[in-house]
């Protein structure tokens, strides 16, 4: 894909340079003006293209200047000053393009960091919304540990305590400790500052982990959470934390969308399937009021929100994340009310080639 793009850039730029020098020669421009125009072309190319293509284009420009531009002579020049001029041209144009590409790389890096920083802020704020549910999630095993320990203490006061029972209690305490630990691990995983790290990820695990995080919140809001992920889906290529962030954001939006609706009919369902283009499509739908048609696009705009306390960044961040993965994220309304958000992720290559 990239190679093709470089070749196209080089071809177009070379064509442009040749036609430019030919036209200048016909119009009897002097060498200095043609040289200047060539430098501009090289710089423009270096701004939009890669370093390789700018070097190539600079050499083409030098050749054009030597062979086509006035005074029209071949490379058999006698005047050593001509060599010096062409050498100087090459040096200047390459230096400028090199500088330009450095600046561009720097800007890209900055942009990338900024994007990650925003994504991180988004995750932190989402965790803030979930804080009370997560506290409950940790409280549950802690409560079980406490009650088990107290029961064991009481059992031990017996003259002949049932040691099997006490062993069972200790095993349960250990398991509940791990359970509380895994809640904290999941939370820490999402809160960590984190560079994009794409690798094959199992869709079922991904959805399951996110469901474990929002389960308590869903129960507290009387929302049923349904997960339909076929077992035989190939893994997707993505960054686990970032994709979880998107999924979490969509599910939390779904839960919010049903505030004030009938308690009997509150359902958020997450489904995954292999779509026609051989990507995995994951959909999150709710049974809320849906999104009015004029807002279907705008919900992805930064700072656009329909919630009283919303920042309006969630969906904007989510779309950026999915697009960085080479996928798409869009919103639809369901026929029977409620909204559905779908996103696609590429299938991991190892699995696709099998």
């Amino acid at each position, binding site marked *: 894909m990239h190679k093709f793009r470089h070749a196209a850039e080089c071809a177009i730029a070379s064509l442009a340079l040749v036609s430019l020098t030919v036209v200048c020669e016909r119009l009897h421009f002097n060498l200095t003006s043609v040289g200047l125009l060539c430098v501009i072309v090289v710089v423009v190319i270096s701004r939009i293209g890669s370093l390789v293509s700018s070097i190539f284009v600079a050499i083409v420009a030098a050749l054009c200047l030597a062979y086509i531009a006035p005074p029209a002579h071949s490379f058999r020049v006698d005047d050593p000053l001509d060599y010096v001029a062409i050498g100087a041209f090459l040096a200047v144009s390459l230096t400028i393009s090199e500088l330009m590409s450095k600046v561009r790389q720097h800007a890209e890096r900055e942009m990338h960091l900024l994007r990650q920083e925003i994504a991180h802020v988004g995750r932190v704020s989402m965790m803030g919304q979930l804080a009370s549910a997560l506290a409950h999630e940790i409280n549950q095993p*802690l409560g079980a540990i406490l009650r088990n320990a107290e029961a064991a203490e009481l059992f031990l006061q017996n003259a002949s305590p049932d040691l099997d029972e006490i062993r069972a209690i200790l095993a349960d305490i250990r398991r509940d400790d791990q359970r509380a630990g895994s809640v904290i691990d999941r939370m820490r995983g999402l809160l960590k500052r984190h560079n994009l790290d794409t690798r094959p990820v199992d869709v079922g695990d991904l959805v399951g982990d996110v469901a474990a995080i929002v389960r308590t919140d869903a129960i507290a809001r009387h929302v049923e959470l349904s997960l339909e992920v076929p077992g035989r889906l190939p893994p997707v290529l993505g960054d686990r934390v970032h994709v979880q962030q998107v999924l979490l954001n969509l599910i939390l939006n779904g839960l919010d969308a049903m505030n004030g609706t009938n308690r009997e009919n509150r359902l958020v369902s997450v489904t995954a399937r292999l779509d026609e283009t051989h990507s995995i499509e994951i959909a999150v739908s709710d049974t809320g009021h849906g999104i009015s048609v004029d807002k279907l696009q705008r919900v992805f705009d930064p700072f656009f929100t329909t919630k009283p306390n919303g920042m309006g960044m969630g969906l904007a961040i989510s779309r950026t994340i999915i697009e960085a993965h080479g996928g798409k994220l869009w919103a639809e309304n369901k026929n029977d009310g409620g909204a559905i958000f779908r996103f696609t992720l590429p299938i991991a290559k190892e699995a696709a080639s099998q």
Partner: protein
Amino acid sequence: MSVYQPTVHIVDDDISFLAAISRLLQAGGFAVKPFSSARDFLAQRDADAPGCVLADLQMPGMNGLDLQSALAQTPNPLPILFLTGHGDIPSTVRAMRGGAEDFLEKRAPKEKILDAVKRSLTRNSCERESRARQNELRAQFDALSKRELQVLAHVVQGRLNKQIAADLGIHERTVKLHRTAITTKLGVQSVAELTRVTLQAGIFTASKLTFPKGQ
């Protein structure tokens, strides 16, 4: 009085907490029956068993408050204690209004939980006793005829035979006969005793005991 031992019915969707709290109450000397959902409890419980319910407030499907209202409609409503990870004010208020016995945090001190369970078991046995007494009394009233009940309603309001006769459109002597029949059937000696027994049995609702307007 009862053949049953009072049982603490524990309802929690979190299996490991359910096991832990069951163990603690068992170790504390209570008979327990664990249920992992409110529906299971309502379907499987012994409808006449004494005891109390210790239920998680937050459960998927039917939550603690739903369970409370479903339980209140049964003939043997057990006192209900709520356990919660973190109780929010609206559900606490609702639970207390619905007659919740207590509201406990899942990690409340052990003594608090054991005491609360003991208290609600005592309350349940008192309630059962008074319900049984009331049922016995009511059975005595079953022997009264419809007319005798009408006369009784007037008598406990302190009305004179003459007034009763006029109201019901019968002879004063007939009223006297009915009154004798009533006191004999219920085995009471005085009008004061008759009134007390009638109120205890809960035969008449409060509205029936007020005088008709304009008299």
